[in-house]
């Protein structure tokens, strides 16, 4: 279970203070598929980054499965990201020098798994996202939709409890976006992962169990 209590995040842009999030209170049950929607700049990405341990809130507490993220050191946060969270980004963020298979295997390799074993697992996950035939390609040799499916496989390989997806269809056309969302839905149903999706596209949000509206850094009721 994910619990956010009174989470706020403020940035300084020059002399100006920007309140990206203000007093967010939120609970997400294990296995739930939640979509956070809102306009650009409403704080969706910031909220996801805080849940994923990429950013620290200015005030408030984040707790995931009883573990308070505020008290974690940088090294502990690294372990947390590595073992408990899978991330999918709008611009795929695959490493260009690795093959698709190696990109997927990377979190496993970073965990210390033997290289070949990690690659074998990556191959299995690539089949799950219908990319078995593209595993030896480099990222720039495949399409955007395929890159995003590879990124999903990478997010799942470490068997995390939480998947965070920040605008995963933002760089894709409608057809490819639909394909990606169907994969999310299929995998969530099969593996019972908690999925938190940030999107401004209502078509994508439709695949979730619950839709939350974020407006000017606050959750709309």
């Amino acid at each position, binding site marked *: 279970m994910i619990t956010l209590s009174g989470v706020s995040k403020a940035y300084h842009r020059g002399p100006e203070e920007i309140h990206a999030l203000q007093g967010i209170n939120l609970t997400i049950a294990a296995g739930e598929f939640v979509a956070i929607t809102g306009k650009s700049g409403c704080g969706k990405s910031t909220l996801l980054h805080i849940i994923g341990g*990429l950013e620290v809130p200015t005030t408030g507490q984040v707790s995931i499965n009883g573990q308070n993220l505020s008290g974690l050191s940088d090294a502990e946060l*690294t372990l947390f990201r590595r073992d408990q969270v899978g*991330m999918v980004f709008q611009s795929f963020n695959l490493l260009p*020098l690795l093959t698709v298979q190696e990109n997927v295997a990377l979190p496993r390799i970073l965990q210390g798994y033997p290289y070949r074993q990690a690659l074998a697992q990556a191959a299995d996950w690539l089949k799950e996202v219908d990319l078995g035939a593209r595993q030896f390609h480099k990222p720039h040799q495949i399409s955007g939709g395929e890159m995003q499916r590879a990124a999903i496989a990478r997010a799942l390989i470490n068997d995390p409890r939480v998947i965070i997806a920040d605008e995963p269809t933002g760089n894709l056309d409608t057809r490819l976006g639909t394909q990606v969302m169907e994969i999310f839905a299929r995998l969530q149903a099969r593996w019972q992962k908690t999925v938190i999706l940030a999107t401004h596209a209502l078509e994508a949000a439709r695949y979730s169990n619950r839709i939350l509206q974020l407006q000017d850094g606050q959750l709309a009721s």
Partner: protein
Amino acid sequence: MPPFLFALPFRHLRSHWGRTLLTILGIALGAAVYLSIALAEVSALAAFKDSVDAVAGKANLRLRVAGAALDEQLLVKARQIPGVRAAAPVIETVAEMTRGGNEPLMLLGIDLFAERPFRDYEFNQHMDQDSERLVDFLIQPYSILITDRLAAQLGLGVGDRLPVILGSQRQELLIQGIFRPASGVYALNGAYALIDLGQAQELLNRVGKLDYIDLLVAEPVDQVAARVQAQMPPGIIVERPQNRSQQVDRMVAAYRLNLLVLSLIALFVGMFLIFNAVSLSVVRRRREIGLLRTLGTSRAQIMALFLSEGAVSGVVGGLLGIILGIWLAQATLKVVTQNLTALFILVKAENLRLSWTLMGQTLGLAVGVSLVAAFFPAWEASRTQPREVWHREELEEKLKKRAWPAFGLGLIILMLAGVCAAQGPVAGKPIFGFLAAFLILIGFALLTPQCAVGLGRLLQPAMRGLLGPPGELGCRYLQSSLSRTAVSIGALLAALAMLVSAAIMIQSFRQTVDHWITQSISGDIFLGPNIFSTAAYDAYLPPEVLAEVQSRSELADVYLYRCVRSAYKGRPILVIGGSMAVLDRHGGMLFRRGRSPEIFAQLQTEGNVIVSESFAELNHLNEGNNFLLPTPSGPQPVNIVGVFYDYRTDGHTVWMDIKFMHRYWRDSLVNAVRLYLKDLAQLEPLRQQLLQDYASRYRLMAMSHRELRAGIMDIFDQSFALTYALEAIAVVVAIFGIITTFLVLIMERERELALLKAIGASRGQVFRMILVESGLVGLISHWLGALAGTLLSLVLIYVINKQSFGWTIQFKWIPDIYLQSLVLVLGVGLAAGAYPAWRALQANLAAVLKEE
């Protein structure tokens, strides 16, 4: 082209100011080194020419005898020759001042009444008002007139005494007046004095003798010269006084050429920096190029944009280099002057002579190399299609595909370097040798991409096993960043190759010289005038000392040595006479052909000589050949019975038995002796005894063989100190390149590194990954640099040095240099990666990963 477009490169340079600064500094250092060496050389040689001109005055011709004095009777004869307007006798010697740091003092013995048409002096008021001073100058023993500069420098005035060492004698000279040359040009920067001719002859034991006679002619110089030559006895040389400057120019030509090439190395390495900077700029700005092309910018305009970026770095770097070069030249002038004095000829240059031409040349060179370096990336940028917005990985793929062809081309260029190395000199200069060296550097630079790919691939499994994912990724990044790393590796390998080759060459040379000293300079004690420099040849051993030494019972043998400066075919040579039978008994010399005992036996016959290897090479003479040796008794036909290895720098040498030399030179002078002891246990007591007997009375030195060897090796090390300094600067420039590369690499990969951290890579893992990559860059640079350096050292030893100086250097492999440079390069590589890595780890993950 709209001027606005030209503002773009400036904006880019400004926005990446750190990288721009390093590139500009690299070019500035290269330009500064070039200018400082050029200014120092020009200043030192101009000072030497001033000395020659100041002493020559208005003289058109000079009469002299090679390495001996003239009979003063010739003065009267010369004055009577039609066309000769005036003749002035001169005695010239170099004394050593024992006040003010044992500096040299040129002493000119002149006939004041014959001088005025030749050299005009302005005397101080004291001398003008008081004509008694003039009389004192002429009649009081040891009276001299000194220059106003020397008087100011030493704080001396009229009536003061100046202690000096003349030959092997201590003397105190009385200052009777102070003058300044009317021309404003000072010999030896003012360190000279005038003495009455008669007194000089007495003081230097040259009564009835002159060193030369200056002539002022009223008709065309060549006609009068021919007339004078016809009326003078054999052995008299009739020449223009300025010939001395030309001879010295020829003597130091090879030294200057080598320094010039060395000074260009840093600039050559700087070229890689510009190439790197503009290449990076092209890659980073592909989208911008695509956009500009879409908006109608022509290919030529795109090319001009990037060339102007290189040119801006060149202009700013060149200007900065000029300022830095002038500053550096002050220190370089001191070193170059010391080297020229220790190795070739007495030079005293304290003031730097700024030359607009040289400064213009430096700026032109900096801009030129920058434009050449920027040309290829600029050309590549201009080929970009409007629709084409490359991703870096596509470029990397393209480069990877070109790695093998580049490797092949590199091998072909290396073979071409081999062909060039096999060619002979062009007009006495090792032009093909330098070309071979340049081709070796280019050839190895072309091997770089494939070597980076190959090494990355080869080490990948091992590094994975050793360091886990960071090791694996570091190897992968190395293979996929060729657009960045290959150029930096090329720059570092070039600098390292020069460092390794110079070290091997210098060490090989050092050991060769050491071996030569051991083999060729035998003797237990050396006794001679205490002037350990090239000015020593007109200092002699007092005859009474020689007689006393020869009668000592502790000695098994005494070797007599006589050396004169002369010239052969317009080049300075040394003619040396020695007791060859003694030399034969105690070790002899290193001959390139033939057996020592037989050669020494042949030297007992008049007309037989041995010559140095450099003399033989330069004049295309071999064992068994004859040539005419100029002597005071006229040109003597001599036969070469042996060619020996010799590493003197102040002239190629011709040796004969001393008895024949005394016959040709019509004297019995001896410069120094080598003493061979019956019992070596007596070495130190005898040396102390000799010092006690003669050191204070005559200013003689008595040195053991070990001390002499140390003295020679000291001069050797000093003369190569500049070489090491120049190499070090080239390495610094290359280090700038490596740091720049990694700063850019990490900056570009900021997002990838953030992603790695986001998906669970620890700080340590990211840090290690970058260090593996930068360490590998250092390692490849080192391996290729060491290999290229070893090949270069062969070219330096067997081609460039051989053709420049005629020396055969025995190649000596120096394993230490590889280890030392490995430590240096790995240190540099790791340090260059550490800072950018640390910077990358400070980045805010969320901000970096924020969607575009």
